[in-house]
């Protein structure tokens, strides 16, 4: 994507500063329409919910250190399990992806804001009430039918908890749809004049694919939940077998959204990794178009694989074979990405700082999730391990490996841009080491557990599985401890970190060409595309910290002329 300056630096007058240059801290608690404020609001909110969801996981792992249900009652265990899943997916990883999209997309494409700023703020402000509904349900009567809420169990295990859960997911789903629509229109319509789709950063491609999935999948989940709500409150029998309904139809509708949702969760972080690796390896991303198209391929294939969650339920044999084939094909675009990232690192000048460590950790553990993903796509093997700890291990590798390590990588990478200050590298590395050891110790032993015969969603289990469970529990504690250096680092560095300057990584994407943190309308002057997002290794005269865009543009223009 080598780009040359196509026009001389803008001769326009700098925009008059009619608005203040920086935000006040109080703006972050208001209905602010600035995409950067909304991005931070999303990010901080999602991390707060992650601490709640994480605490629930720790209670569950403590309970599972012994085979008997002795720490919490089995009912309460099921409530924790349901809320842990729901919070981590709908209130942490999905909003965290939206956080990066909100913060970065307008900056990356040289726009002042999102296409629909007010809608954007509305989308964010649906998250806190959606989350509170779940937390409140814990005080009244929490849902305990798992995050899948399969009927008939969800219809008989406590009406109010279930209904609050449905309302919460509907609120969060609506927020997600509004956000997705906004990302799609912004990427498509708001790019700066010189930027065609092939000079967009890959993060924009991955958000494009994510937004398409959100818009196609989420309404189907909403429909399923509204019908479930009718069954629950109005006594209809859409899914209730007692009245002639079909619980399998719910499963089809649920997974039609919830399988693509996995990609809604990880695709943004595939994008993040495609941004982080080239910068810190000082090399162009390998195979830009292949990685861009593979995001779209994953989105498309992601929509036709949902029944692989139902191989052991009411799915006829031919349907199992069809969904086995489509599921396995997903390994091809994901393989393209993994090989592309490895080739990007190959021969580079790898700076092993915290974003890069998390980036490499991301590839290495997502790989395990991907390999076990192909295994569970195979119907005969999936019949054995379905609904066991093998699956728990598999999807935590996918979501922790593919989502959360990517999320941390992005948080450290863009922290200087968002805060204007550098984070502490030592604390960052301690955070990485603890996280990486913690998650592998937690989730690796789950695979043999599942294969040996331990089913999931249980508070009591056969004592022969205790040893591996103790390992998982120790791993979970290490993962919990890993959060401490992270929080200390973030809070301390926001106030006391070394000033970052506009471009501490000497990166080439547009967001680094403005001040850190960016001015209220992002760019003081009309931004000009002077290089492709990954043009490393061409011009040794890289943009350094003190050099302004004006100077650089003048240089580039002089070279062209």
């Amino acid at each position, binding site marked *: *994507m080598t780009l040359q300056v196509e026009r001389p630096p803008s001769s326009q007058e700098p925009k008059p500063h009619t608005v203040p240059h920086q935000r006040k801290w109080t703006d972050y608690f208001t209905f602010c329409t600035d995409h950067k404020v909304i991005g931070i609001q999303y990010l901080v909110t999602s991390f707060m919910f992650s601490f709640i969801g994480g605490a629930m996981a720790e209670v569950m792992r403590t309970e599972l250190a012994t085979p*008997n*249900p002795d720490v919490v*009652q089995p*009912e309460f265990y*099921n409530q924790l399990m349901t809320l842990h899943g729901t919070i981590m997916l709908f209130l942490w990883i999905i909003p965290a992806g939206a956080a990066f999209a909100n913060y970065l997309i307008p900056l990356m494409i040289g726009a002042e804001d999102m296409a629909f700023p007010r809608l954007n703020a509305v989308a964010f402000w649906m998250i806190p009430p959606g989350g509170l509904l779940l937390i409140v349900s814990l005080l009244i009567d929490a849902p305990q039918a798992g995050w899948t809420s399969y009927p*008939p*169990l969800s219809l*008989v*295990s406590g009406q109010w908890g279930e209904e609050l859960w449905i309302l919460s997911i509907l609120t969060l789903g609506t927020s997600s749809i509004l956000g997705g629509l906004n990302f799609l229109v912004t990427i498509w319509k708001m790019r700066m004049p010189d930027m065609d789709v092939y000079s967009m950063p890959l993060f924009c491609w991955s958000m494009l694919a994510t937004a398409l999935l959100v818009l196609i999948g989420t309404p189907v989940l909403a429909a399923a939940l509204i019908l479930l709500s009718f069954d629950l409150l109005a006594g209809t029998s859409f899914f209730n077998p007692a009245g002639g309904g079909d*619980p399998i139809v719910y499963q089809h509708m649920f997974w039609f959204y919830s399988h693509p949702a996995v990609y809604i969760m990880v695709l943004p972080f595939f994008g993040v990794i495609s941004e982080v690796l080239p910068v810190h390896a*000082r*090399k162009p991303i*390998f195979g*830009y*178009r*292949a990685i861009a198209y593979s995001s779209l391929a994953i989105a498309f294939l992601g929509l036709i694989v949902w029944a692989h969650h139902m191989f*052991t*339920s*009411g799915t*006829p*044999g*031919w349907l199992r074979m069809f969904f086995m084939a489509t599921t396995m*094909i997903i*390994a*091809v675009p994901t*393989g393209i990405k993994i*090989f592309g990232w*490895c*080739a990007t690192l*190959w*021969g*580079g*000048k*790898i700076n*092993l700082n915290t974003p890069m460590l998390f980036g*490499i950790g991301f*590839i*290495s553990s997502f790989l395990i999730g991907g390999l076990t993903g*192909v*295994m569970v*796509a195979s119907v*005969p*093997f999936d019949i*054995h391990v*379905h*609904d*066991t700890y093998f699956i728990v291990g598999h999807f935590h590798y996918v979501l922790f490996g593919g989502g959360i390590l990517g999320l941390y990588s992005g948080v450290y990478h863009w922290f200087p841009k968002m805060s204007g200050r550098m984070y502490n590298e030592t604390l960052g590395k301690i955070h990485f080491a603890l996280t990486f050891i913690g998650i592998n110790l937690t989730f690796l032993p789950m*695979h043999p557990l599942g*294969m*040996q*015969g331990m*089913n999931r969603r*249980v*508070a*009591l289990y056969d004592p022969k599985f205790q040893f591996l469970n103790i390992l998982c529990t120790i791993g979970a504690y290490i993962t919990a401890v890993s959060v401490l250096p992270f929080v200390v680092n973030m809070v301390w560095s926001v106030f006391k970190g070394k000033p970052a300057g506009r471009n501490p990584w000497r990166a080439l994407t547009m967001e680094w060409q403005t001040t850190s943190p960016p001015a209220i309308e992002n760019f003081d002057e009309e931004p000009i595309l002077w290089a492709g997002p990954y*043009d490393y*290794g*061409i011009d040794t005269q*890289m943009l350094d910290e003190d050099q302004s865009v004006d100077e650089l543009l003048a240089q580039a223009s002089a070279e062209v002329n």
Partner: protein
Amino acid sequence: MNIPSNIVTLLIGVTITLVSLWYGQNHGLLPIAASEEALQVDGIFNFMMTIATGLFLLIEGALIFMIFRFRRNEGDETDGPHIEGNVPLEIVWTAIPAVIVFMIAIYSFEVYNQMGGLDPMAAGDTGTQEIAHHHSPTGNANLIALDSNGSEIALGLGSSPERAEDQTLMVEVNGIQYAWLFNYPDTGILTGELHIPINREVNLKIKAGDVLHAFWLPEFRIKQDAIPGRETQLTFTATRLGEYPIVCAELCGAYHGGMKSTLYVQTQEEYDQWVQSNTLAQTEPLKESVATNPAPTSQEQFLEPFVEQMGVEAETVNQLHALHHEM
């Protein structure tokens, strides 16, 4: 000594291949295989494990190598080479995963077919049934897709078409919160644990009384959801004597973890003896009392007779008792 790099690559390739082949067969991750079906599933898992080990070693090895080999020197502000892509290389690594998953898919299809997954008796192909009805309302004899009772076709793993059906032992399984009940229609035995003879095909007709459950035999590598309002089935042949756990794998409520039973694989003589003693022991009134709808009894009353078999601690049942009174 200066070894040419292609020889080094070859040696690494051979090593990774040998290690993968060895580990794929010797991972020790699966429990004992106690049926013909389990051996087939283990075959496909070993195959996938071999490939996965190879890819894991290759990619993780490359990552570790790169961290050391391509690490930036302190103070080096220059960039790496400007390499944007390489079309032949990209084609190769698109083709390799495509070929691998194609092989795994074909192999899986074969195994699934062998296990009886694509047996028309189990395929749930209701479309065929309807069309057949229209065209030949009386010619039921040649409608292979029709179940013996002609009404509903079960989902799950069916019996192989070659087998004569009267050779198969039929057992009706009913999953309820939180127990499995087994009914032997031939002998009228109703029990909380499953006894089967070795080397004889067993066909389980699985139903659910309240919510979803899943009937799982880890040592047999087979599992099937029990769905209220629908009948599903599993067919297998035990090849190893012993006791094996029966586990519920679908979340069915608070005591889902306690919903267990035991499968006893016995010699034909032991099995006949068990049938005989149970047929005598199960007098009519007792049979009725066990077979009545469990709904009116409280959970802990209902569970009491099954506590021992389910492997649930007495403590758990007491908790259930306390809980019932709270409610």
